[in-house]
């Protein structure tokens, strides 16, 4: 039987008086790739911020592995939930290697860390070539690779990707999604936030569609993909 890796129930959040999430419920099973789709401003990033502990929750609950999720961002990372944030958030004045070391900052298992460095450089040979370069000097695609690799260094059980395709060339996007697939096949559960619905639905196991802070549809990726009227209505394509 599968475990509930992550379970969000009736989650509410607001910026000032503006409601960004109005009771969102979803669950993610171990080993799944779950996509959360929606137009700009639907509340996708807010959802991830709440899960990562960097935004105050106004109501509802988030459970991780059957227990309420820890409160502080570092406790959440330590528990195995890591976000690869929107806009990559690279440390531009640190080298590639230092960016990775920062991602592993909460770990004590030296051997596991060495293995993960190797794994990152195997996944992204281009980062290996640029170990000593400043993060700010990398191209957009390389920065996205670095953001993903940095997440891997925290040795997560669940990795949450916020718009990994944003601003990248199609060929790089494909490369990025191949890597996410590989990370998933190696045992990490994936939550994927995307605006590019077509791409994400083809890629995920299940998907939720978010509109102005509410879940309006959910189902298997391939089923949702066939429902053209739904895509037209909620995702504006």
């Amino acid at each position, binding site marked *: 039987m599968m475990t509930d890796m992550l379970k969000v129930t009736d989650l509410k959040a607001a910026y000032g008086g503006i409601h960004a999430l109005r009771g969102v419920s979803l669950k993610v099973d171990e080993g799944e790739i779950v996509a959360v789709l929606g137009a700009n401003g639907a509340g996708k990033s807010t959802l991830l911020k709440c899960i990562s502990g*960097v935004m105050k929750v106004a109501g509802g609950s988030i459970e991780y592995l059957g227990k309420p999720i820890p409160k502080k961002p570092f406790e959440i990372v330590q528990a195995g939930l890591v976000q690869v944030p929107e806009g990559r958030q690279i440390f531009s004045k640190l080298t590639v290697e230092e960016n990775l070391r920062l991602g592993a900052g909460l770990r004590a298992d030296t051997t596991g860390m060495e293995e993960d460095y190797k794994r990152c450089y195997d996944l992204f040979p281009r980062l290996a070539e640029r170990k000593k370069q400043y993060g700010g000097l990398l191209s957009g695609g390389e920065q996205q690779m670095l953001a993903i690799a940095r997440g891997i260094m925290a040795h997560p059980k669940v990795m949450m990707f916020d718009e990994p395709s944003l601003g990248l060339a199609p060929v790089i996007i494909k490369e990025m999604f191949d890597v996410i697939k590989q990370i998933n096949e190696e045992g990490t559960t994936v939550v994927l936030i995307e605006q590019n619905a077509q791409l994400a639905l083809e890629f995920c196991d299940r998907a939720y569609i978010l509109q102005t802070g509410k879940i309006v549809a959910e189902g298997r990726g391939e089923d949702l993909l066939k429902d053209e009227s739904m895509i037209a209505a909620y995702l504006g394509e």
Partner: protein
Amino acid sequence: MFFQQLITGISVGGIYALLATGYSLIYSLLDFSNWSHGEFAMVGAYIAIVFSTMLPFPFLVAAMIGVAGGALVSWLTEKVVYRRIRSTGGPNMFLMIGAMGLSSVFQQAANLIFTGQYRSYPFKLPVSTIKIAGAYIGVLDLISLIITAIILIFLMYIINKTQFGLNVRGIACNQWGAKILGVKVDSCISKVFILAGCLAGVAGILYGAKYNVWPTMGNIGLKAFISSVLGGLGSVPGAILGAVLLGIIETLVSAYVSSSLRDFFSFALLIVILLVKPSGLLGVDVQDKA
């Protein structure tokens, strides 16, 4: 003569560097000019006075208590004032104004407790000299130089080689990104205030040993500011370079031009740097904060 002045200059610069590095670290993390930074030096210097002249402690013990006191006060300002101002989400200007207020509070408090009288530590080091390569070098200058060099090397090691240092540089570069990755941002900031307070405490005691201790001696914080701007705001190696250069320039001006023009030159230099190269000597511009 010139060699002698140079050693004095580097030694004074070292004291500025102890202040400038802490000031620069705080600036790099929180993006505000900590105008109360020099007061931690004053607090450390006075605590060492209390323990070495009013209470029967050996000077070294008193100095260590003074350094710890500087660190404690620095940490308290973060805990009680700056963190609260940050949590209101107001502009960084509030932090700077808060720092100015704190600076006045500390100076006035010192004036009330200790009066404006100049005080000195119970030893005669300031007047002894030794002869090196034909020049008379102040023993105090040499001791100060050695202590400063050891501390600054240790500091550079912490910043560049430890996980804590990496976390600090990460926060300086992108606080939000660091937080998301699980860096304990508030705890790192507190530790930096403690570290900066220790450095300031050492600076205050060394400065006090050279020039006495008085309530407004914390104004050397301004020299830390000039040093940091000269070297590149927010850069630790820049702060050290700027401080040593400033120390040498001040000493040479005092010796060969006029000691009353010393501060005139320092502040003129500040204005020139701000006009000509505001990023400072070592200000790296890889990419601004995202």
